[in-house]
């Protein structure tokens, strides 16, 4: 025993770095994801929507047509019957993230590998972190590839190179997309720690997803008026009610992601949420510079990241206390 470990033990501290073995777990997780059939299916799904929406978008966008930000419009242009690619992303990213991690902890438990892994010289921290980062990096790889694909096809078809401004906006949107995936991944990881059965964990995650996609706006529509004053008489009350509704809808990560997409991909959008016509009266109809757009969605972006970290922290606490008996 090294003297340093003995001293630490005497102080009641845990020896060594909590991240010992993180690299090994991370590599294994990514290898599993990238070679797995599950991932293949998901990649095909995303690729299919990307190609489909890109094709329809390119039908409407022509180079030289007076528009700026052609490349960003590849993400946002919709033509019947297909919605825009961003719409698909808002729906599919959670599903992919959930599919990657709903069985990460309980799967190990059911395979009876968990106790064998934890009997190796690594902390639980490394295992959990490795699983989370493995999923997140996989998401990053997949979406980066899709982004490059969109830009590549764009260059071929549009014939003009993307501007720095466009590239910057697309990259920030990519970051937003990854953390939008991160929050759902952290949620699925949490459920995979809480529930022993992977099927239950997957269902619970999907239930939360469905709740936010389909019902949250209805819930806000019902709850917001109840919280505010009974009758709105003044302008201040109207503004307050509107803002309350705004705050409530923003509990949903989908709203946060939609905000990020709107501001980043449509540079002419300068406001989010509740705005009075009076406020728009003197507004200039010109695109915002990237830095200004970033300022507008900064709270949304940090909100997504913070929620991801919070969910992960909760999972961490639960996992540390869990009895491993397999």
């Amino acid at each position, binding site marked *: 025993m090294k003297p340093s470990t003995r001293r630490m033990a005497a102080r009641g501290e845990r020896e060594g770095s909590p991240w010992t073995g993180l690299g090994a777990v991370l590599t294994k997780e990514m290898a599993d994801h990238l070679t797995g059939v599950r991932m293949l299916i998901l990649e095909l799904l995303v690729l299919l929507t990307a190609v489909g929406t890109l094709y329809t978008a390119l039908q409407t966008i022509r180079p030289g047509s007076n528009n700026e930000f052609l490349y960003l419009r590849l993400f946002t242009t919709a033509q019947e019957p297909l919605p825009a690619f961003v719409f698909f992303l808002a729906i599919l990213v959670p599903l992919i993230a959930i599919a990657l991690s709903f069985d990460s902890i309980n799967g190990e438990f059911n395979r009876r590998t968990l106790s064998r892994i*934890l009997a190796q010289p690594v902390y639980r921290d490394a295992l959990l972190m490795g699983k989370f980062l493995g999923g997140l990096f996989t998401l990053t790889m997949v979406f980066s590839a899709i982004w490059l694909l969109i830009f590549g096809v764009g260059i071929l078809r549009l014939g003009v190179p993307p501007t720095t401004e466009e590239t910057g906006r697309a990259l920030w949107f990519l970051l937003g997309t990854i953390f939008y995936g991160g929050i759902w991944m952290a949620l699925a990881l949490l459920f995979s720690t809480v529930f022993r059965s992977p099927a239950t964990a997957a269902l619970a995650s999907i239930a939360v997803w469905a709740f936010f996609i389909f019902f949250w706006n209805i819930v806000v529509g019902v709850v917001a008026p109840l919280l505010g004053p009974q009758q709105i008489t003044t302008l201040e009350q109207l503004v307050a009610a509107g803002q309350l509704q705004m705050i409530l809808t923003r509990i949903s990560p989908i709203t946060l992601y939609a905000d990020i997409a709107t501001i980043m991909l449509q540079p002419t959008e300068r406001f989010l949420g509740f705005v009075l016509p009076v406020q728009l009266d003197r507004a200039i109809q010109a695109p915002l510079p990237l830095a200004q757009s970033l300022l507008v969605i900064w709270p949304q972006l940090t909100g997504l990241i913070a929620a991801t970290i919070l969910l992960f922290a909760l999972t961490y606490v639960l996992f540390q206390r869990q009895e*491993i*008996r397999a």
Partner: protein
Amino acid sequence: MNDLVLETKGLTKRYGDFTAVDHLDLSVRRGEVFGLLGPNGAGKTTTILMLLGLTEPSEGKVNVLGFDPARQPLSLKKRVGYMPDQVGFYDDLTARENLFYIAKLNGIPRDQIKRRVEEAIERVRLTDVIDKRVGAFSRGMRQRLGLADVLIKNPQLIIMDEPTQGLDPELAHEFLSLIHSLKEEGTTILLSSHLLHQVQAICDRVGLFSRGRMVLQGTVPELARKVLGGAYRIQIETEGSAAKFRKALEGLRDVNAVTVNDGRIILEAQKDIRADAAEAVVRAGGRLRGLSVESQSLDDIYTRYFEEAKHETVN
């Protein structure tokens, strides 16, 4: 450094009102094979988990190879191999890939991993299936792979939970001989089991568990003397009724008890008094058909001990 590889003092684990392990004092010496025996639910697995730091003790002290499992788990787990009961692997990976992962988690240098993995696999004689997916492995192969998984870190102490459970007798025997060869190389082994006759063959010392307590501890003959009184059980088979020789046998020296069972006489004695017993039967006019001495089996000790314990609680 002292001779103890593993020591617990007053180790206790409570789940609510239920006490799974109750003030356990356990010590295992360097190089010995120690068997934790007891019925299911006696607290064997909980004890093992506490030794490895996978479960926090409610009370008491644990020292494994000079480390405290709660505070120095990394140093401890680097040197201690643990084989859980029903060891699990990643079924879609090959045996080699499964062990590679474990080797990496143990921080074995990259240039040594390949050699160490192959050596461990060869040790358990799985070399010809090293690149087969573990999903296709039989129970016996998995168990052997589990041992290879432990051997990869060259452990000083190996802890096995029910290593022979679910193996057919032949496989179990093979597995036990593997354990035996490890012991000969100087590895200390702690194993838990409820299959007593198997454990008896390879354990230097055993500890009997009951309801979270270690009720008996020692070598098998020591336990036999403590529980059964005599260390020898002699079986005598005679022609005709056995009952009439009872008196003659009871008169012999060193006899503790004589019981007649289905025409057989069972003599419990402090020494091997077969010759005297035969003589006594013949003198009493009997014709001897069979005479044998049973070595003390753990099964007997176990059954007898728990019978007595039950009687005591009833009285």
